[in-house]
């Protein structure tokens, strides 16, 4: 079977599991929401400061939630040896990687939209019309980058004892460039601190390069990683 058919099969299966189990809906989304509220408390509910730092807080909450989504995505594979079974079945590891990436990416994208909505409600952030295209492009490219890194390290950590603690250790430093780029691009899209929309596009290109590099590298490295 082609890589893309395998990827579609794995992604649909992952989303089906989430639809049935509702772990992301009932646990990860509330966690992300609580994180946003806690940030507000930590910054003393100062609206001016919150408006200024809202883009960064959204991506911080996204990053923490990414860890939970990736843990969950690989926990269902490890629970009854399904990842092993896929390896034995000779399922193309690049297809598995892309499929897991897509499944994680879709969940992450929904989460990001809801977190932006929460930023509007909780922090008084506003979305300007001229920044919408930049905002959507940023969400898509950052999501691809985060999902690419998360899937790669999720697969790597899945084979180790103490994977719950290993995953954040591997993932957080690697996604730092996405965090920085996405925050700057969203600031430009929302006009935070008078940032211009044009300033955001160079950060989007950084995000796109990151996503492509980790996506391609991840697809190539995933097979040997889960094999060892």
């Amino acid at each position, binding site marked *: *079977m082609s890589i893309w058919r*395998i990827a579609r*099969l794995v992604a649909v*299966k992952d989303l*089906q*599991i989430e639809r*049935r*189990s509702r772990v992301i809906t009932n646990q990860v989304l509330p966690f992300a929401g609580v994180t946003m509220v806690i940030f507000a408390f930590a910054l003393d509910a100062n609206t001016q400061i919150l408006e200024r730092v809202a883009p960064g807080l959204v991506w911080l909450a996204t990053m923490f939630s990414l860890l939970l989504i990736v843990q969950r995505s690989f926990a*269902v594979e490890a*629970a*009854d*040896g*399904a990842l*092993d*079974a*896929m*390896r*034995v*079945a*000779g*399922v193309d590891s690049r297809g598995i990687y892309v499929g897991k990436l897509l499944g994680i990416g879709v969940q992450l994208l929904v989460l990001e939209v809801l977190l932006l909505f929460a930023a509007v409600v909780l922090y008084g952030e506003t979305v300007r019309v001229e920044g919408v295209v930049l905002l959507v492009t940023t969400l898509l490219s950052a999501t691809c980058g985060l999902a690419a890194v998360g899937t790669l390290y999720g697969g790597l950590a899945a084979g180790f004892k103490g994977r719950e603690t290993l995953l954040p250790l591997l993932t957080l430093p690697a996604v730092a460039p996405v965090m920085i780029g996405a925050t700057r691009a969203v600031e430009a899209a929302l006009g935070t601190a008078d940032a211009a929309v044009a300033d955001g596009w160079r950060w989007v290109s950084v995000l796109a390069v990151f996503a492509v590099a980790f996506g391609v590298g991840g697809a190539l490295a995933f097979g040997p990683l889960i094999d060892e």
Partner: protein
Amino acid sequence: MSSGDETPVICLRDAVAVLGSFPALAGATLRADTGEIVLLRGPNGAGKTTLLRLCAGLLPIARGSGKVFGLDLATDRESIRPLVGLLGHQNGLYADLTVSDNVRFWGATIGATDSEVESAMACMGVGGRLRNVAVRQLSAGQKRRTALAGLLARRARLWLLDEPHAGLDAAGRDELDDTLRAAVQAGATVLVASHELERAGQLATRIVDVDAGQVRGAPQPGAGGGEA
């Protein structure tokens, strides 16, 4: 049935497989031909599971040589895997998906048709009222049957089974034995590790002893003779 002249399904010569630094297989020599049901007999820790995983292409061969369907276990592990079905201590099932979803997923990895999937489920007795039940709600025996249905849907040519009767009731054991005999008649080969010697012994066409990482005792047709 077996013939000494044709390419053996499995041909191991002094195969060594290492788990960490421990040689779980310490020079195993074994040959299995098309249509055989070979029972691996031996105490816990003898190396039976490692032997099955080596033949599935999940473990690298550290020393010696080994071929499955004429493909080298040192260099062609990826090509061997699609030809092999391994049912180990774990079932490789997704707890949140239904029986039908699981079997369909495993069938889809090799492009099995709907009728093949239905036939596999019917054959293992999980096609009726169980088909829409989530795997997490099944008994241990029903999970085992579902996993076997997945294996059947994948049309594996070499079945590697580790304690396949575990958790099955009397009817399930009879169905499993019938399924294995039917698979063998259709051209498959079965290597089964079991402690249930009375049951598995009746099923097997040949019994070999595994002890301390080596295959002992019983005759190994063609070992030292024809090569793939």
